[in-house]
């Protein structure tokens, strides 16, 4: 058992990790920036250490400060959560060199899967289907992108080789758009990841984003825990996720699951990870990338499988063997996760501020993961995700009904949230039928010109 685990994150995932550690009997250290002195994760951990000023680069992304905390305060494990340093190979390596366990895969797996063109090449070589795209190590210059695009045909998705989180991503439908958006996407990639290398993929219309949860130990035992449908996205940012995916037949699930296991096995992966696929309307599926960390939406898989992914990730990092065989993984009911963002529901601009009144829903099958409390000040410096509402029921219709009821019960005063958007999604007839793809949320975007009129009327009344 670990003696003390440092949680190198903040917000909902830090709390999630602290809870898992409490159940396992592992003391925790929270780290925080000066902007987070009153954050819930700081209150919940056994110890807390301020590691730097508000800017993430100086605190939550500050590898020397976190390693120094590990050494000074005597932790023997680090959980990176998601975002921040979770997919930073140098951080995993720094942990290992300091003699501390990194809860996650080996640094080489993080680096390999972080290099998207390389991951694509390896998958293609091992028979995991990938979308047609630019070949080789990626493209930097527009003329090379143009040459690759002529071979592929439009529409095309421009992606960052070091990418993630939708940054540096653009759909282009013709040569003129490529010339216009390629430099923009490249600049975005350079700003976000410090890399100008891009790659192109054929853009699939009406595709669904379906990902498989992987669980693996250090002894080459590797299983999947089924899929999650994450097609409800806005600008490549997930908003609502569900398990199982309403479009999968048992046969297709088995085929995709096998492909996911193969994808993770060929690189010798260990700990938790996720294989992301695009699922075309014709039932063909394509590997897009692997996330080498716990995902925001891990909760829906936990609800339908009954397996605590965070506790398992810690056990696996301690060198324990996988406790389940593939055939022991069973699925019960349906789960939906609504990501609650502190944002203006119309403009999607972040809405930081003080939470004046907080009441969270409850009841059977209702799970709330949040860092909010009465009087909490949502800081401006970080991701606007403030809560995850996870609903579980015997079937999908039951989960939708439960989600609607819980969202109506949820009170978060003082800041604006996207709860109204979730209610509209859940009331949508196509969503209720399970008939939706990654372009689904566009129907809720107000037309740019018409948007003004109803809003003004609303304000006057």
């Amino acid at each position, binding site marked *: 058992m670990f003696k*003390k685990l440092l949680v190198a994150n903040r917000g909902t995932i830090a709390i999630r990790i602290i809870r898992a550690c409490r159940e396992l009997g592992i*003391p925790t250290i929270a780290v925080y920036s*000066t902007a987070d*002195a009153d954050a819930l994760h*700081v*209150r*919940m951990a*056994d*110890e*807390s*250490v*301020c*590691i*730097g*000023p508000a800017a993430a680069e100086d*605190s939550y992304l500050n590898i*020397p*400060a976190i*390693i*120094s*905390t590990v*050494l*000074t*305060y*005597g932790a023997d494990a680090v959980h990176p959560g998601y975002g921040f340093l979770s997919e930073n190979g140098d951080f995993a390596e720094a942990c290992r060199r*300091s003699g501390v366990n990194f809860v996650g895969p080996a640094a080489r797996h993080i680096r390999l899967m972080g290099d998207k063109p390389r991951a694509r090449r390896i998958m293609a070589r091992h028979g995991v289907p990938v979308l047609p795209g630019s070949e080789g190590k990626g493209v930097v210059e527009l003329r090379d992108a143009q040459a690759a695009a002529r071979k592929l045909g439009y529409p095309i998705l421009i992606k960052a080789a070091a990418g993630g989180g939708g940054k540096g991503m653009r759909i282009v439908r013709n040569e003129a758009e490529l010339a216009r958006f390629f430099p923009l996407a490249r600049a975005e990639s350079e700003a976000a990841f410090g890399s100008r290398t891009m790659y192109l993929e054929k853009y699939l219309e009406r595709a669904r984003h379906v990902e498989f949860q992987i669980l693996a130990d250090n002894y080459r035992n590797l299983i999947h825990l089924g899929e999650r449908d994450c097609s409800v996205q806005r600008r490549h940012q997930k908003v609502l996720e569900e398990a199982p995916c309403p479009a999968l037949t048992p046969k297709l699930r088995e085929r995709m699951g096998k492909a996911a296991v193969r994808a993770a096995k060929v690189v010798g992966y260990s700990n938790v990870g996720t294989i992301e696929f695009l699922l075309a309307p014709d039932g063909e599926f394509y590997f897009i990338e692997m996330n080498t960390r716990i995902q925001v939406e891990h909760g829906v898989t936990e609800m339908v499988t009954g397996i605590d992914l965070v506790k398992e990730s810690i056990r696996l990092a301690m060198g324990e063997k996988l406790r389940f065989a593939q055939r022991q993984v069973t699925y019960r009911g349906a789960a939906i996760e609504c990501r609650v963002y502190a944002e203006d529901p119309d403009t999607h601009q972040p809405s930081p501020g003080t939470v004046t009144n907080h009441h969270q829903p409850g009841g059977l099958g209702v799970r709330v993961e949040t860092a909010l409390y009465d009087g909490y000040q949502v800081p401006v410096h970080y991701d606007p995700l403030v809560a995850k509402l996870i609903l579980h029921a015997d079937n999908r219709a039951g989960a939708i009904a439960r989600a609607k009821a819980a969202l109506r019960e949820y009170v978060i005063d003082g800041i604006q949230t996207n709860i109204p958007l979730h209610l509209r999604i859940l009331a949508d007839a196509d969503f209720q039928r399970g008939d939706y793809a990654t372009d689904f949320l566009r129907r809720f975007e107000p037309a740019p010109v018409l948007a003004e009129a109803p809003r003004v009327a609303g304000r006057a009344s």
Partner: protein
Amino acid sequence: MEVRDLKALLLLMQEYGLVELEIEDKKGKVRLVRGHPDRAAPPAAEPARVAARTAVPAAPKRTAARSDADGRARRGGQAPALEANQRLVASPMVGTFFRAATPNAAPFVEEGDTVRKGQPLCIIEAMKMMNEIEAEAAGRMIKILCDNGQPVEYGQPLMIMEVG
């Protein structure tokens, strides 16, 4: 900055309920930190909170099962109340606090010593690197708040100096 300027700033801080203020101009940088009125910090240079902190044994033992309430009170960043002519030396990083360059050497500074500008005051060891913390201004050492070998966090008060 003159003492009376500092006093004016402190009054402004009180008026607007500010707990912390940092100002930088051509002449240098000043950071003022007020004791939290609702936590009833005594005006003396050594509030109970800090005393409690230094009384805690060094390194991992700091864990010693704590309730949320006392843990919060013990955390750094919340500075002791200062007199108008006093300045706080805060840790610029997470690490281990040392009062001398080597285990056998004499401490860089003792309470009551006169301090030159730029004089080393202590060392913060972070990842085997010894970082010397220098005096930003000349003055007198009033109070050393941390024990030799104690872990310190970012912004944690280390010493109180009298300047001007």
